[in-house]
């Protein structure tokens, strides 16, 4: 009897130990499970393909022409995927079946790159959410399963993001190589990759990120252009009819946003009106990435396709999850939360509404303020902590550029304000 109870205690102990090991890694385990599911899904889908789609056939023909040293079939096609196909064929012999998984490999590899890029600073669950929404997006999955450039362009763009977000200076050179390979994968996406490096350098006030990236990106881009030029006698990035841009932006991507990104797109506008989106410099690159890409593709006069939205789908999902994260981490009454978080609600009409007393059924609002209390010693226990205002570790952002809201408190309404603010965002009271 005693031995039996001892065995049960040991079992419980093993269970507890296992839980202690597994618990911090639940998101990681879920991510690995996602990879397995994704691999099976790619395999089951691609194994049914008997013929490449039209653009894929063009890349195959170009690959054959590179290999046989013949004129290219379509000279405006980016060369990287054809070079990779030619590389495989030089070993296996020409057969389209031997390369039909090639693009999917990059689509699949995009998942861990995005996960690792976000996990370090936003946490494993946030990263997992962003990856799930990205890889299980029907546009992303379908087009990366085809023999197209979408998979490799997405992979190298995300690799650029990963490397520029790194603290290791050596990685910034790799970011430049990835920018060059993004160019070789799909010409226009190089603008997104370059923007990622530019904005991240600006956000971190570290221009060495950009200069080092440029130092390696330029030779790669020049080499790609030179090779295509030597082969074709010209360098063309697209058909002439597809390169007309206009200031009259097309509503195509906004109208089809739910089709392209799913219902999650509805959360993106919320992220844009939350103050945290802009206060935290980590987010700037995603804001710029999304806005620039949307404007760029919307500015094209004639050529609109939802698959062009694939490369900035991670930015869309990041912003959507950012909005959700703010609500998940909030522990305050919604009106107080909104009064602090919404970007434009510091202005008088909104502030008046938000400062109106709550019904008695919700005690604790508005927060108790002692008029005689000095400005820097708020008496309310509802004052947000630094952690609430700055969720998530941001190790490589210099402390000098971190927001330090808690150092300035409005004496009238007790709302935190930026240390250099002259007026309270909420009630307009002069702070200094």
């Amino acid at each position: 009897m005693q031995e039996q109870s001892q065995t049960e205690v040991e079992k419980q102990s093993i269970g507890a130990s296992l839980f202690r090991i597994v618990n911090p890694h639940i998101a990681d385990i879920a991510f690995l499970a996602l990879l397995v599911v994704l691999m099976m899904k790619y395999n089951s889908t691609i194994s049914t393909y008997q013929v490449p789609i039209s653009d894929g056939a063009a890349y195959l023909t170009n690959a054959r022409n590179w290999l046989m040293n013949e004129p290219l079939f379509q000279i405006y096609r980016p060369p990287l995927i054809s070079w990779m196909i030619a590389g495989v064929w030089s070993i296996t012999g020409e057969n389209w079946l031997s390369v039909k998984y090639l693009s999917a490999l990059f689509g699949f590899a995009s998942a861990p790159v995005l996960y690792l890029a976000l996990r370090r600073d936003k946490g494993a669950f946030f990263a997992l959410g962003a990856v799930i929404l990205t890889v299980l997006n029907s546009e992303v999955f379908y087009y990366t399963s085809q023999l197209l450039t979408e998979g490799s362009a997405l992979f190298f763009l995300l690799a650029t993001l990963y490397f520029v977000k790194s603290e290791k200076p050596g990685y910034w050179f790799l970011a430049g190589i990835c920018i060059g390979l993004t160019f070789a994968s799909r010409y226009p996406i190089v603008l997104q990759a370059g923007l990622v490096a530019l904005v991240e350098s600006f956000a971190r006030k570290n221009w060495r990120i950009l200069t080092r990236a440029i130092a390696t990106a330029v030779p790669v881009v020049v080499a790609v252009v030179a090779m295509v030029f030597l082969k074709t006698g010209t360098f063309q990035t697209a058909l002439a009819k597809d390169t007309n841009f206009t200031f009259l932006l097309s509503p195509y991507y906004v109208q089809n946003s739910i089709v392209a990104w799913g219902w999650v797109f509805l959360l993106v506008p919320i992220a844009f009106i939350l103050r945290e989106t802009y206060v935290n410099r980590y987010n700037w690159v995603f804001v710029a990435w999304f806005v620039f890409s949307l404007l760029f593709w919307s500015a094209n006069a004639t050529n609109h396709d939802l698959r062009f939205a694939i490369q900035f789908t991670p930015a869309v999902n990041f912003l959507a999850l950012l909005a959700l994260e703010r609500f998940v981490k909030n522990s305050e009454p919604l009106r107080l939360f909104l009064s602090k978080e919404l970007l434009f609600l510091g202005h008088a009409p909104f502030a008046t509404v938000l400062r109106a007393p709550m019904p008695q059924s919700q005690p604790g609002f508005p927060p108790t303020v002692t008029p005689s209390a000095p400005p820097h010693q708020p008496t309310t226990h509802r004052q947000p902590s630094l952690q609430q205002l700055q969720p998530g570790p941001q190790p490589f952002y210099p402390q000098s550029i971190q927001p330090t809201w808690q150092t300035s408190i409005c004496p009238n309404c007790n709302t935190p304000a930026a240390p250099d603010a002259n007026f309270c965002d909420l009630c307009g009271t002069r702070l200094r």
Partner: protein
Amino acid sequence: MRSASITACVLGLLVITASLAGFEQQTAAMAGPRSIIFDTRFVEAMRDVSSLLPDDSNLLVSSNGAIVTYFTGHIATVPWTATSEQTLILYMSQRGYQYLLAFENKTDVAALKAVFSSSGLKFLETTFVQLDEYHTDFYVIHLYKLKSS
């Protein structure tokens, strides 16, 4: 967390779930069940077409130019500027094309829809000789050669 915030979180999670829920159906719908990518007999048909064409000959196709080019090894062009049977023949003679690969009831050129319809193809036989006909899973494909004048 207060109830309003919980509600906001639940709504957010519902939105995410809704985004993921349609993944399978949307992905399947993107290609369509009768897309050329699922055609198991297409590659074989293109091999047969290739065997009938002389080396260095190009051909005109009603659709799927890039795919035909890859699998036949002959550059296949879609006659984008042709608008009728007459302009199609003119297009071919001016550019030196001898062969036409017609996908029955399928063309990328809207103006040639009638020409490549089942009934329209019968009229082509006055100016073309049909070399062969291929039945794949989803297409009936006719290979024609322009009659010498």
